[in-house]
Structure formats: C-alpha cells, structure tokens
C-alpha cells in the first residue's frame, strides 16, 4: 500500500499544474482528500482502499470517450463488490495482503501419459486409434529411425555434408502428424522430418534434398535436412530458430478468415522458447485468436545447453497461462499421448479459434546435428539410459504386440526393408546431377531484376573463360 501512496502523491502536484491533463477531472474534492488523508492513509489499509475507490469516474471515463461514442461504457465500479475495480483490462479484486506470487508452483505441472514404459495402457482418457493408423504410425517411426541412422552414417562417410537426426523423438514426430489432417499447415523447426514422412514425402525425396541434386524441390540452395514441400503443406525448414512460430500464427489467422476447417502447427525446441519470436508469436496468437498448435519438443538440450541454463520456469507449459493460451504437458515418448493431445488441441484450435500450447517432454537421444558430439557435454550413460528405457518406438511396439498387431517377424522385415530403401535412395540421389547454375539467380524475386541478369552473364563468362565445371 505504501507504494500506491507515494505514486499518487507524486501524481498529485503534476495534476495540479496541468489543469487540462485529465480534462474533466474536478480537482478540489479529489486533491483535497489526498491532502487531508495524506498521513492517515498509511495507517489503515481500509482508508487507503477507500481512497483508491474514490478516484473519480471521470478519470477513467475520458479514456472511453476517445473511443466511439456509441459504445456502452462498462460499469467502472461494481455496485455489489466495492472490493474490486474495473481497471483497463478488467475487474480486479483488491487484497490487503502484501503477498507475492511464488516463482515456482507448489508442484510441477503433471505430464499426460497413456502408455506405460512396458506398453501398457495407464489412462482411460485417450483417443482410440484406428488399427491401420496405428500400424502406419509404427512403420513410419521405424522408417524415421532407420533413415536417420543411415543418413547419419552417410554424412560420416562424407557422402552428404550435414544431417539432423530425430532419434528419441519419433513419437513426437509421427504421432503428432498422425493426429492432423493434410489441410493443416506445418511450420517446422528442423527436427520434424517424421511429420513430412507421415504425409507422404518419399525416402527418395529426402535423399534428393540432402544431396541437393536437381530433383531437390529447394533447388540445392540449402543445407541437407532443410526440407520443404508445398504439396504436403510443409513449409520449408530454415536454420534460424523459432522464426517460424509467428509465421504459423499469421497463417492460422488466414485460415480463420478464410473459414477453413484447418489449423496450423508449429514445432520448436526448448531452446526456441527463449527467443523473442516465441514470445511475440504466443502473444499474437492469443490476441488475434489464431487456430495454431504451438508444439514444443522439450528434449532437454539446446546443443550443449541443458534446460536449467535455458530457463527457470516450470518448463514451457506454464508459459501458456502467462499469455492467455491453453496448454498441456505430455509424455513426448508416448505415441498415444501425443496423438490424443494433438487431436484434442486441433479440435479446440479450430472450433474455438484459439491457440493451444503443447509441451512434449522427451529426450534428444542423438547429437544436435552431425556437427556435434554430445558426449563432450553429457554423460554417455545418460544418453544410453534414455535410448533404452524411454525409446518411444519400443514402447509403441510393445503396445502393438500386446494388441496382437505386431510380431518379431514383421519387425525384422520392416527394418530390413527400410534400410534397403534408404541405402538405395542414397545411391540414386548421389548420381543425379546438381541443378543448373541458372538456379542461383531464379526465385530471388518472382522475375530476375536487371542486376541479376547482369551477374548471370558475368558468372557465365567466368565459367566459360576458365572452363569451370558448372555441372558440379
């Protein structure tokens, strides 16, 4: 309360000098009350509270006057509750307690889980999945795991320059994708190749992008693993962190305005939530009422930075309420939980035109990228434990086996098939030519401007003069 008083004490002389400042304020009753009660106010909270309530209606009503005259004035003081005031932003109750909201909740937000570590159902509250969908989910999780392993090896052999694996996050990738429809637009970070795989991107298409050959839809312009596919409604990946999140919000707003039965989903890691773009996007999503699912893969690590060096909040889920965004924490290694959460979030986002934040707790079992060796900053035992005990693929398999939908023989066949497919795709992609050098100059603008036309000619002369091999 002391704080209130000094603040108002300072305002008072200011008001006296500028008569017209508030326009309609009548000086004498208000200012005289302050002078009378100046000392007394600090005594009893009752009195100071009464003073605050005495602030003339004219002070705040002038603000409403600047808005359209036909708007109804919201009652500024509730007749039934003198302990509250309709501040800008809404009614707030007063308290006499000098009490701070703790920086930590009593308990960490609970984590939604459907499948136990042995593939047993531990929840009665989840979305039933069609058998065919469940089998496709599993096959795609295995394929993703296989593709990641083989491409990683290919990078080590020098056949591609770079790669990003999603080891440990197969459920996050596949199950979230499975709960969406093709009309839902995906704005990925760079560890969500599985979402694209689910949607039908072929292994060959992945390989072509990694080799940057002329079949790459990105025309060889970006590093490997920077996929994008308009026919799969999957926006092109960029290395920049979290920049895609506000894009997803704007695109969601467009879907809403166009009356589409679809939402957008955007993925980002724990590190991404420290950026300004995350904050901007969460706030815009709430204010614009955009149907966007904001999916955080909290895998514990941002390259070598563990989460306790990233933030001090209870993870990401609690940030939702800070922005007015509904949120949930799920077990990211549990395919059924991820599926249910995304399924529910999608319905809410579309039917209520609201953003939903999902924090999937998981573990980055692989390195950040092929340019990283994570054993330099975390114990090998830790990595091994997560890989073995919390492998989302294994857990989902156990559930499928329990349902009688899968068996060891199918497993061997699938793994062999997937590995061969990836190896073959790499061999094919490796032999395909790179795009023509002309593609350096196209798509900077819709049509190349004169300066680029000049530069293309100049580069062509350099190539000819020195007989450079532009077939690369």
């Amino acid at each position: 309360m002391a704080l209130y008083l000094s603040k108002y004490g300072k305002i008072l002389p200011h008001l006296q000098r500028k008569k017209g400042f508030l326009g309609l304020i009548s000086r004498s009753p208000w200012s005289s009350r302050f002078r009378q009660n100046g000392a007394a106010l600090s005594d009893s909270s009752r009195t100071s509270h009464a003073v605050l309530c005495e602030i003339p209606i004219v002070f705040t009503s002038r603000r409403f006057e600047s808005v359209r005259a036909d708007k109804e004035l919201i009652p500024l003081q509730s007749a039934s509750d003198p302990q509250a005031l309709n501040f800008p932003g809404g009614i707030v109750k007063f308290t006499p307690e000098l009490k701070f909201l703790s920086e930590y909740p009593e308990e960490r937000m609970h984590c939604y889980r459907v499948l136990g570590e042995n593939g047993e159902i531990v929840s009665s509250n989840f979305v039933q999945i069609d058998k065919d969908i469940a089998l496709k989910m599993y096959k795609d999780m295995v394929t993703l795991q296989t593709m990641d392993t083989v491409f990683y090896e290919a990078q080590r052999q020098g056949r591609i320059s770079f790669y990003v694996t999603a080891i440990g996050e197969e459920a996050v990738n596949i199950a979230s994708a499975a709960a969406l429809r093709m009309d839902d637009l995906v704005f990925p970070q760079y560890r969500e190749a599985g979402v694209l795989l689910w949607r039908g991107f072929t292994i060959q298409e992945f390989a072509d992008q990694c080799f940057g050959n002329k079949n790459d839809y990105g025309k060889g312009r970006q590093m490997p693993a920077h996929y994008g596919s308009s026919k799969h409604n999957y926006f092109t990946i960029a290395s920049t962190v979290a920049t895609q999140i506000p894009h997803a919000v704007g695109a969601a707003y467009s879907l809403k305005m166009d009356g589409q039965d679809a939402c957008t989903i955007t993925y980002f890691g724990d590190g991404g939530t420290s950026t300004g773009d995350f904050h901007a996007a969460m706030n815009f999503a709430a204010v614009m009422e955009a149907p966007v699912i904001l999916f955080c893969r909290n895998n514990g690590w941002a390259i070598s930075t563990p989460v306790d060096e990233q933030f001090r909040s209870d993870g990401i889920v609690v940030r939702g309420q800070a922005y007015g965004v509904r949120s949930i924490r799920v077990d990211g290694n549990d395919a059924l939980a991820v599926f249910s959460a995304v399924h529910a979030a999608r319905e809410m986002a579309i039917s209520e035109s609201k953003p939903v934040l999902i924090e999937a707790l998981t573990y980055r079992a692989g390195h950040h990228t092929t340019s990283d060796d994570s054993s330099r900053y975390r114990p090998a035992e830790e990595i091994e434990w997560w890989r073995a005990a919390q492998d989302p693929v294994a857990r989902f398999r156990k559930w499928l086996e329990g349902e009688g939908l899968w068996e060891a023989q199918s497993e061997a066949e699938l793994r062999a098939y997937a590995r061969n497919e990836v190896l073959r795709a790499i061999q094919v992609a490796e032999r395909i030519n790179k795009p023509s050098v002309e593609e350096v100059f196209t798509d900077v603008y819709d049509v190349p401007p004169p300066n680029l036309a000049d530069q293309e000619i100049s580069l062509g002369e350099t190539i000819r003069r020195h007989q450079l091999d532009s077939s690369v």
Partner: protein
Amino acid sequence: MASSSIFRRIGGLVVLSSRRACSRGLSTGSEELISSRGIGTAKPINLFSAINQALHIALESDPRSYVFGEDVGFGGVFRCTTGLADRFGKQRVFNTPLCEQGIVGFAIGLAAMGNRAIAEIQFADYIFPAFDQIVNEASKFRYRSGNQFNCGGLTIRAPYGAVGHGGHYHSQSPEAFFCHVPGIKVVIPRSPQQAKGLLLSSIRDPNPVVFFEPKLLYRLAVEEVPEKDYMVPLSEAEVIREGSDITLVGWGAQLSIMEQACIEAEKDGISCELIDLKTLIPWDKETVEASVNKTGRLLVSHEAPVTGGFGAEISASIVERCFLRLEAPVSRVCGLDTPFPLVFEPFYLPSKIKILDAIKSTVNY
C-alpha cells in the same frame, strides 16, 4: 527546413517527364493521369491522405488483404489508416501488440497464404526488431523453398526521415540496411501523387516490399492526386528536372531540397538534371547512366549518414559504367556519421547550401 509553400509548389510541379520520354522532353506521367482524357478527377491532398486512399483502394480491390500495426485501428499516429477499420472491419484492419518482430513475423505468415499483408511499423526507427524476420525470413522465403512458397504479398510501411524535431529516434533513414538484402524491394515516394501509385504497386508486387514514407511530407506536401486506382511502376527512376551540366539523384523528401539547390544553381548558369530513384532496390541504373553520360557529373544526396549509405552503391555503379565520361568525382551530400541530433538538425542534414556548394565544386572540378 523548407516552408509548407515550397512543398505545395513541388507538389504542383507534377511530373515533368518520365524516363522514356526525357529525350524528347515530353511531359508524361501524372499530367496524363490528371487530364480529362485520363483517369478522372483529382483533388489536392496531402501525403497521409494519399497513403490513406491507396490503402482504401488496396483493401477494396482485394478481399484477402489486411492492414495492421500499432495503433492503426483508430487511424494511426499519422492518420494514414483513417476510416479503414470502420469500412473494412476490425478483422481486416487491426491493432497489433507492441512488437515489431511479431508484426512482421505474423505478416509473413499471412502473406505466405497468398494474402496481401500490409504491415505498419510506427516509425522506421523501430523497424530493427523486425530486421531478422525481414532479412532471414521474408527476403529468402521464396528462394529457400525453390519457389514452392513465397511471401510476395508482404508490404511493410514505415514513416522515415527528418521531421524538424525528431532527434535520434523519430528521424532515421534506415534504407541502406535494407538495400543490402537480396529478395526484397525498397521503395520511397517523393510526393502524395507518387506515394499513392507507388504504394499500390508495392502492395500488388509479388515480392516483399519495404515502403518508407517521408514523414515530413505527411501534412506539408499537398498535390493533385487522382481519386482513382492507379499505379506507378517500381524500379523505374524518373527525371523530374532536365539539365545538362550535372546529374543529381535522390529520393523522398530530400528531392525538394535538391530541387531548391538546382533552381539556385541555375542562376549561376549551371543546368542541373534531377532524378527521383523511387525504387532503391532493384534500382534503375540505366536511367541514371544515360543521364550521367549526358552530363558527365553525378551528385547523390540522402539524409542517411554518408558512410555506407545508398549513395555509395550508386556512386560505385555509375563509376563502373561511366568512368571515362565522368568529368569529376561523384559527389555525395549526405547526413553526418552521427546519430541524428536534435538541436543540431540543420547542421546534420544535407541542406540546400551544402548541395549548392557541392554542385559548384563538382562543376568547377
């Protein structure tokens, strides 16, 4: 600073000749627009009203277009968005939270869906939080996707430039930062009639455009502006005053200062050719080159600090193309290499006196 009467006169000057017609000395451009054969009635209005008209037309002509930014709902701090929310609704014309990176990021998402996203940054001085989204995202959106995606419908508008009392943070001319970014366009109008046409072109151009509006001219510049829908082409410079002794190149509000210098120089027998660049990237090198081939001398003037300013690019490009024709070094009359000072503004700016001195020393080299 120039009085309001100068600006009205500049406005009333109307385009003397377009790039194509300059060799024949014919008047084209807005005179045609305003004639009875042309596009219909025209009224004398100021810059913010011209911008406002363009926005009304843009929203009317494309139902999937949006205008948003801080405080645009009530009309905007410069009144450029007056009446839009009432006419098109608060879902198409709306306030955003105070967050430039959010404004541009959100706008990119909207534009990526084929909408025309017309985002306002309240002052060009505050565009920098959005610089990452502009440079790393908007400008590369089409290229990095192999043309599968684009955000061409994005237009970012921001008031820029000296206003007499703006100091560090209400006066900046940041165009040079953006001219170094392949994939976007940078457009700066000199007057109300130009602004309406250039803004409509920018909005409809299938590439992201950063559109800087000279805030000094919002109220001070008054010009006959056709009421109808019309566009002024991008990447076409315009010779707005013909001459034979020296070529001057500029954009935005600076052109009127340069024109005053040209008029004074004429009293000393120096014939000045004045070119409005209009689009800074991609810029019309040919028009400037043709002019310098005629005059043999070039002077570039901009408010932004001289070092690394866009004048350097113009100078280097013209020296490459016209080296043997040049009679003197390219002169740059620009802002000082300091933050924009308040009480010293008249000394900081490239004033008429400085330009006149530079014209004379270039001609007498």
